[in-house]
């Protein structure tokens, strides 16, 4: 009994993220953390709490306040034998680093025909619903899924957070790991103590169902689950919910199989609608499962507006009502 209990802990997502970094830093001396306030302060969300005490300031580095500097120097560190984990304090602060990411980190492998590679992870908290100031809550994953040479990963629960982050650190190429702030402390799940990886590029079927496939990620996963559970009570239809987990590359097989089974699909994301990842998901469904579709694929998304501040941010986020409305539209088609 005690041995089983010793192998798992109930952790929040932020604790699971810390655990992933700690696990990898213990195992591999080349893993470094660079970011603003990641040292003594343990990160503004405490993601790196305790790591400077354990690994020292040579491996957990409080950098100057300069996102391009963090990512740019990490390109050099990564090429020269280290595995940097860069922390962006918020996803909306990544814009100054965009140039380094798009012009160097992601194309170094090709520009050097494999001579130089950039095994780097950039972690960034994102998403609305935590009453943060302007810019902090931006959900701009689609800017990054469009960049060749970059994987984009987002967990929705503590178990996946640890496993996906370990897989990201072990990946030989740059990975953008975006963390839904709303999920950081909204629940604990069992997380194994040992090292394990959740394969990148694989979606998870969060809930099985027969009539509509809902494809979503990040904080919208839990919102969707709640909305659907409430709606399904007393209905003879059911939804299958898929957490995409990796936004580039998408898990084509899981999406295809589910849509072939249900014949209907709804994509839910909080990012702005135009140019969002939903476009790629729908395109993939058209390619892979067009003849199974009984209705056009619906989207429930944020607006093509800046993510609003506090007073309107909950109105911006896709609500349970909007998600269910889209589900019913596809069923009535």
């Amino acid at each position, binding site marked *: 009994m005690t041995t089983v209990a010793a192998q798992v802990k109930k952790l929040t997502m932020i604790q699971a993220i810390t655990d992933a970094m700690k696990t990898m830093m213990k195992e591999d001396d080349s893993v470094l953390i660079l970011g603003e306030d990641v040292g003594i302060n343990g990160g503004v969300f405490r993601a790196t709490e305790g790591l400077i005490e354990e690994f020292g300031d*040579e491996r957990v580095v409080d950098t100057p306040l300069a996102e*391009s500097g963090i990512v740019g120097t*990490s390109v050099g*560190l990564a*090429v020269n*034998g280290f595995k940097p984990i860069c922390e962006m304090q918020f996803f909306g602060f990544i814009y*100054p680093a965009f140039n380094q990411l798009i012009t160097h980190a992601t194309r170094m492998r090709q520009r050097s*025909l494999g*001579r130089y590679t950039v095994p780097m992870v950039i972690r960034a908290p994102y998403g609305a619903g935590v009453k943060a100031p302007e810019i902090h809550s931006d959900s701009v994953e689609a800017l990054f899924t469009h960049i060749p040479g970059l994987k984009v990963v987002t967990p929705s629960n503590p178990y996946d957070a640890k496993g996906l982050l370990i897989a990201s650190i072990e990946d030989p190429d740059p990975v953008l790991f975006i963390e839904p702030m709303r999920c950081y402390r909204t629940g604990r799940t069992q997380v194994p103590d040992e090292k394990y990886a959740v394969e990148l590029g694989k979606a998870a079927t969060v809930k099985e169902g027969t009539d509509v496939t809902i494809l979503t990620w990040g904080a919208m996963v839990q919102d969707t689950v709640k909305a659907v559970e409430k709606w399904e009570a007393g209905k003879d239809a059911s939804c299958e919910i898929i957490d995409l987990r990796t936004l580039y590359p*998408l898990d084509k097989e899981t999406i295809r199989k589910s849509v072939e089974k249900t014949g209907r699909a709804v994509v839910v994301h909080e990012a702005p609608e135009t140019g969002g990842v939903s476009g790629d998901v729908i395109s993939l469904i058209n390619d892979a499962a067009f003849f199974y579709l009984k209705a056009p694929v619906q989207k429930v998304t944020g607006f093509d507006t800046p993510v609003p501040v506090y007073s309107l941010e909950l109105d911006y986020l896709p609500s349970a009502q909007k998600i269910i409305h889209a589900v019913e539209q596809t069923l009535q088609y």
Partner: protein
Amino acid sequence: MEKQFPIVQYVDEDGQLVKDDARLDKEQLYQFYRAMLRARMMDKKCLNLQRQGRIGTYVQYEGQEAAQVGSALAVEDGDWMFPTYRDHAATMTFGHSLTNLFLYWKGRLEGSIPPEGKNIFPPAVPIASQLLHATGTAWAEKKKKSDRVSIAYFGDGATSEGDFHEGLNFASVFNIPVVFFNQNNGYAISVPMEKQMKSKTIAQKGLAYDIPSIRVDGNDILAVYFETEKAVERARSGGGPTLIEAVTWRYGAHTTADDPSKYRNQQESDQRRQTTDPILRIERLLNNQGWWNEAAVKEMQEEITDEMNDALQASESVEKPDLNQLFDNVFAEPTWTIEEQRMKHNRISKEVGQ
């Protein structure tokens, strides 16, 4: 500020030594001379090839040979070089092959690949971004407790970019063994120095970061070489970064795609060939020392011509790359998206006969 950062000169425009303690030996002077001659002949060759349509848009450097060659001779195997796409005089001096240089300008990825054992980054095309790579790479060397250093090249316009400041700041805060080597040729394409910055020198920008900074005569290869050597030695021995401003001049355009007579007096520029030219200066120095050897120089020119012709021939005999090269190096393992696009391309190009 100009007084605080005087331009360090070892040899004046007449080829006279102005620094008594400069080490000077005939063999080394000829090494400098040959490397600059090689760089200039290569630049001229590339310009001609571009005019003939045998390479793409070309980025020339004629006039900046002393700055690039002198600094490149001051670093060693195992050190890291971060060029821009104007700095092939530096990379070829450091050991990059001429064949690959031609390939680079033919738009071939192979052109960026340095010889085994030479740490040369692919040329940076965005401005100032490579300063951070140089800092990060040297930081890694410091963490590994090696004595290897980085040298990063950039122009005057680059000092307006955020990454210049972030690079200097990181290097300063973490005491990183990196040499920031600026070539100030007075213009960022068409924008003259005085419209680029109010500061009269670039070296003074190092003050803000507490980085030792120096201005050198960028057309005086002895000044460039010995001062870069000092900076490299300081970095190697744990003394941290240095900012070097090499004041120089480029005769030609920014690239083969622009016309400098639109934004500067090109006649004045051409007149500099008689005065500040870095190769002429070392010729005068050799003459003044009584070391000038016409026959040896002629032999050098012939050797370099042969080397360039061989390299050009080699580069022109390389077949066009297979498109698969493009799909192979985006990730370590291609994603399904890339594999599908590869297969789709191959299928459709067969169907449409392309």
